[in-house]
């Protein structure tokens, strides 16, 4: 399913003295099967965009097209459930939304809200719990007896069990330790690859964005500052650094090295392997100006 934001503007508390412009002139296409990363500082408008992707927010100007539905500012929308089933959102700290007595019931909650039968929902729960790397035994436990990392996975399983066409991730690894972070990111990447699941990752981590995403959108002060493939985005890291945004470690290192050696490597490196290859090549050739 394709999603597209067209000239979207959103103002909070419109018509009150507290009115605040959150995003303006935002146009983003998310064709089916894309892995898109949205990056920016806190307050850059990332979360506002995220909430437009399943019509939690309606644009105050412009329109959002989700599959065959069109969301605009004016009319009152009916039957938004259909959209919410197709676009699953994993919010930041999703473990805060757990509430059922057992893990199984909690995972079944979403699917059953969308009219899936109980037997089918339970089958999905068994599948989803494995996808997030937990064992089936956990299904009978109370979600509140689990460790923080396990709770996070259960909450994610609850969204996966809705079997959405698009999955939206808001800082899915916040607060996890390095191993947990890596495992979760690898899991979503695998889902994306195996099922061609459209994925939108909202994150602060340039590393994750550059490693996993096909395309990156950089938000700054409510506007799209830059968009493109990781390599394009990081070709000239100066602009990003000026905005006070991070660049991936690999890119930053390349930038520093090129500065000191006063030369340019053949290409913008994204992975550690590419970088070591390029650097050792440079050092061997010794072709320096």
């Amino acid at each position, binding site marked *: 399913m394709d999603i597209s934001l067209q000239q979207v503007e959103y103002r909070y508390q419109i018509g009150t003295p*507290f009115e605040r412009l959150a995003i303006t002139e935002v146009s983003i296409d998310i064709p089916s099967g894309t892995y898109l990363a949205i990056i920016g500082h806190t307050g850059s408008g990332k979360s506002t965009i995220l909430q437009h992707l399943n019509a939690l927010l309606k644009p105050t100007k412009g329109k959002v097209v989700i599959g065959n539905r069109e969301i605009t500012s004016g009319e009152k929308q009916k039957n938004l459930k259909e959209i919410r089933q197709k676009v699953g959102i994993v*919010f930041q700290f999703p473990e805060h939304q757990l509430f059922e007595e057992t893990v199984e019931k909690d995972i079944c909650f979403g699917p059953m809200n969308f009219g899936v039968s109980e037997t089918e929902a339970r089958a999905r729960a068994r599948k989803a719990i494995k996808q997030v790397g937990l064992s089936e035994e956990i299904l009978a436990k109370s979600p509140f007896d689990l460790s923080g990392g396990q709770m996070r996975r259960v909450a994610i399983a609850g969204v996966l069990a809705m079997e959405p066409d698009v999955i939206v991730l808001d800082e899915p690894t916040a607060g996890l330790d390095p191993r947990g972070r890596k495992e979760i990111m690898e899991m979503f990447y695998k889902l994306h690859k195996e099922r061609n699941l459209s994925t939108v990752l909202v994150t602060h981590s340039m590393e994750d964005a550059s490693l996993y995403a096909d395309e990156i959108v950089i938000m700054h002060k409510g506007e799209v500052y830059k968009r493109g493939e990781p390599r394009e985005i990081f070709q000239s890291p100066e602009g990003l650094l000026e905005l006070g945004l991070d660049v991936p470690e690999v890119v930053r290192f390349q930038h520093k090295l090129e500065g000191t050696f006063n030369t340019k490597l053949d290409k913008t490196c994204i992975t550690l392997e590419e970088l070591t290859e390029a650097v050792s090549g440079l050092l061997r050739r010794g072709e320096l100006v």
Partner: protein
Amino acid sequence: MMDKMIIGRYIPSNSVLHSMDPRSKLILIFLFVCIVFLANNAITYGVLVIYTLLMISLSKVPAKYLIGGLKPVIWLVLFTLFLHIFLTKEGTLLFEYGWIKIYEEGLRQGVFISLRFFLLILMTSLLTLTTTPIEITDGLETLLNPLKKFKFPVHELALMMSISLRFIPTLMQETEKIMKAQTARGVDFTSGPLKDRVKSIVPLLIPLFISSFKRAEELAIAMEARGYRGGEGRTKYRQLKWGMMDSGMLVFLGVVTIILTLLRT
């Protein structure tokens, strides 16, 4: 969500009322509530109206906020007004149409009672509009201090109030976040049959309870780590300053009270 709240709405300003000690304001309100019942004729009610208008002008609060504050009770006031008008059968008959009979005394009482209502609401809203909730808490704490002798937990109560005030906005944000997360999982909070809507409260309330308990626990640990062990031996950072204006206002209200007693019939 926050902008619709009326209770405890505070409007920052540097007016005379704003700069007064919350203790004197609390005492004034208490006394005012008592003396309102002294008024029983047009002149004494006039005195009260003038006093209230004077306070409003001293508060520099825009009239529209005060009128906004009156809106929720307008039906209650109208109801009592009509009750008095139609049910009191004393004095001269002023108006008659079929079974509707309006007597002078009924009209008089109805108007007075409504007026009393309005005056009380205006004055109490003036208190919250010119005093921050934490100032009110501080004021109450000091005023209730003598009760400590009777083992009344004044300090704990005040601390509870101030912590609640501190966490109201946090919990509001949290509520909104959880609502959004559950909406994304197919819960409909805004439409559908009442039965479903009541049911949809569960996935909102349970996470809220759990997170509040977790917050409370973490807060208790943090407070302990910062050396909190009850009210004993504690000093206070927030200070209340009783000024000339505070004494002056109390004396002024005393004078008003004397006038009221002299003029009432």
